[in-house]
């Protein structure tokens, strides 16, 4: 075989790297023996390669292996802990007792609400989903003052609710035909997903109900966290994972994620495909795609939600998208070893540790991630116990929407997985809202002794500015047995319109 300079230039690197077959290698060797210029090329590239090899390598820093081992051990401990908690699972709400984690969980919801730009979904009185774009302040970490009002009679709560793990189904129209009875255990048939997908895009998610999610009764919202990254949250409700619809939704989510990972524009699968073609190779970003399922998912060989464990997204992350094969349209999920959002009694002292951003969580496990300049806000939690969750939810939704309409600065969100509304706004408007809720659902204040103790506690704290932000979590809890005083349940009309309530000084 005779080789000229042009031909040699084509294979010079194969020659240097020993990737040629014998015949071509012999021809190349023959050529450079006769051609000084090509021989110099070979020497120059060999030298370049040697330099890269010699100077490009590094020694791992001291203690590297130990750090990795520590992180692995920490994850293993977290897994064990979450399993233990699950084994000891009990219904977290008890008569007259609102556990500390619950109020913390309510306050954690602020993290979801906080951080800039949100698109929220809530149910209109007619049952359709409406959206509201809002701007929230920077990341907030709630602390105090905290008040508790229990909005209904609670007799029989323990026995009744301990068998009622599922929150009520709020969106009849969205998940048509797939909704479940509120009191029906979700364990066997329901996999409720909360899926957060990171995107490059700022602001509202474009997938919405259009590209696969809608047909299956899913909703999406996007939010920007304190680190400035946008996340898109998908709430997939009442859907056995094995169904075609869920599958379609998963595909839609992935396409959406891929599309944004590639910085593609437009919406839907087409755009994603286009981007894939355009870019050739694609790397899914596993650390920013968190697929989580609340409670006990169908495939819960992983970790079901432990008692008392809540996350900012109100469901534990139990599966992550790990790979995506563009050619075969295959993807796989794996349970992450860490449960970064979990917190339990032991963690309660440092709730910030659970607030890590998804993208950072593996970087510093267990490290407090309190944002500098974080704002403290007041928070409160109310519980509405009901034997007719659907009606209660409708009523409550109507009331919330009316309130949000009257208070444009307030924001609200129904969180299906947690079975609660989260509302944030000015402290005084939150107080007004609670009064309205109490009037509508027959709430009563705490027992005088408890109220006095709360008051004393509050008095010890500095006066809270009623114009500051506050957040309220309103849980709707289905009960099988009517409360003892249900018959006497007052149907008092909502007394103060929100506008009027706004003018009240509801603070302490």
């Amino acid at each position: 075989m005779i080789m000229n300079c042009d031909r040699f230039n084509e294979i010079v690197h194969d020659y240097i790297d020993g990737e040629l077959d014998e015949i071509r290698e012999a021809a190349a060797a023959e050529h450079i023996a006769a051609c000084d210029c090509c021989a110099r090329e070979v020497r120059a590239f060999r030298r370049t390669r040697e330099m890269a090899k010699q100077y490009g390598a590094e020694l791992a820093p001291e203690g590297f292996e130990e750090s990795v081992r520590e992180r692995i051990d920490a994850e293993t401990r977290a897994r064990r802990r979450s399993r233990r908690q699950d084994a000891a699972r009990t219904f977290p709400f008890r008569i007259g007792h609102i556990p500390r984690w619950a109020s913390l969980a309510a306050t954690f919801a602020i993290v979801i609400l906080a951080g800039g730009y949100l698109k929220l979904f809530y149910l209109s009185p007619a049952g359709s989903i409406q959206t509201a774009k809002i701007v929230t302040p920077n990341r907030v970490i709630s602390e105090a003052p905290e008040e508790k009002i229990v909005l209904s009679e609670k007799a029989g709560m323990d026995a009744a609710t301990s068998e009622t793990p599922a929150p009520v189904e709020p969106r009849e129209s969205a998940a048509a035909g797939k909704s479940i009875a509120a009191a029906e255990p979700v364990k066997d048939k329901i996999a409720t997903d909360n899926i957060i997908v990171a995107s490059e895009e700022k602001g509202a998610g474009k997938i919405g109900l259009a590209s696969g999610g809608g047909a299956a009764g899913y909703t999406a919202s996007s939010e920007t966290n304190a680190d400035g990254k946008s996340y898109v949250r998908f709430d997939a409700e009442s859907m056995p994972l094995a169904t075609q619809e869920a599958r379609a939704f998963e595909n839609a989510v992935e396409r959406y994620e891929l599309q944004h990972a590639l910085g593609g524009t437009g919406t839907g699968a087409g755009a994603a495909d286009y981007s894939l073609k355009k870019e050739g190779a694609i790397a899914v970003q596993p650390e920013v795609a968190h697929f989580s399922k609340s409670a006990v998912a169908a495939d819960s060989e992983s970790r079901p939600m432990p008692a008392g464990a809540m996350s900012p997204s109100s469901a534990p992350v139990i599966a992550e998208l790990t790979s995506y094969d563009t050619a075969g349209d295959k993807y796989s999920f794996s349970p992450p070893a860490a449960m970064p959002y979990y917190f339990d009694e032991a963690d309660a002292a440092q709730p910030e540790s659970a607030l890590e951003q998804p993208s950072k969580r593996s970087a510093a496990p267990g490290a407090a991630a309190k944002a500098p300049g974080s704002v403290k806000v007041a928070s409160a939690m109310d519980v509405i116990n009901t034997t007719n969750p659907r009606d209660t939810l409708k009523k409550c939704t109507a009331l919330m929407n009316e309130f949000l309409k009257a208070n444009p600065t307030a924001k609200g969100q129904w969180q299906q997985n947690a079975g609660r509304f989260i509302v944030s706004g000015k402290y005084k408007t939150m107080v007004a809202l609670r009064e309205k809720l109490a009037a509508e659902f027959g709430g009563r204040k705490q027992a005088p002794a408890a109220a006095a103790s709360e008051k004393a506690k509050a008095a010890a704290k500095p006066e809270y500015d009623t114009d500051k932000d506050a957040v309220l979590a309103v849980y709707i809890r289905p009960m099988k047995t009517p409360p003892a005083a249900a018959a006497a349940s007052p149907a008092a009309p909502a007394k103060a319109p929100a506008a009027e309530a706004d003018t009240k000084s509801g603070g302490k």
Partner: protein
Amino acid sequence: MQRQPAPEERLASVSDEALVERTLAGDAGAFDQIVARYKGRVFSYACRMLGDPETAAETAQDVFMRAYRYLENFRGDSKFSTWFYTIVTTTCMNASKYHGLRARNRDERYFESEEGSVSDPIDRVPSDTYAPEKLAARGEIRGAVRDAIQDIPEIYRQVIVLKDVNDFSYEEIARILECELGTVKSRLARARQMMRERLIAAGVLGPECD
């Protein structure tokens, strides 16, 4: 009396794939051995891709954490190192995005460069200041080579680091980066050419061919 080998010594001759099996069976030491085997290469790759050693160390740890979590996904269809390096490359690429460590990327350096900076394309002509012994005396070759690698656009840099620093074959690189063999070859040729130009400009390499 014969000394009992330490656990790490016992594992030293075990294949990567066997170590994976042992890890999945609950042998913690087996994964430590994987870390010990790959830590240098992974850290080198992360350093060259990210530039900043601190971020590289953090990212390299992330790589091992991720590999540990997803170890059961490794089905043995390919070599462990190939599977593992898909995690390495993806994690580093993400880290590069998130940490915004592209400050040393060529275009930005053009903007930042002061007069006479070596980053200016005009200076990338064969240097008449080729004096490697002087540079070596000043301990600058290492820095110049690293700068040269860092200066190459990411897609080319990936290939040259995988090939020349991490010593993978063309085919393995194609599998790791999920691209065609031809793409790997052309990127490597381009990467080496770019690196050569930069080394010549930095006075580390002499102009060899007219």
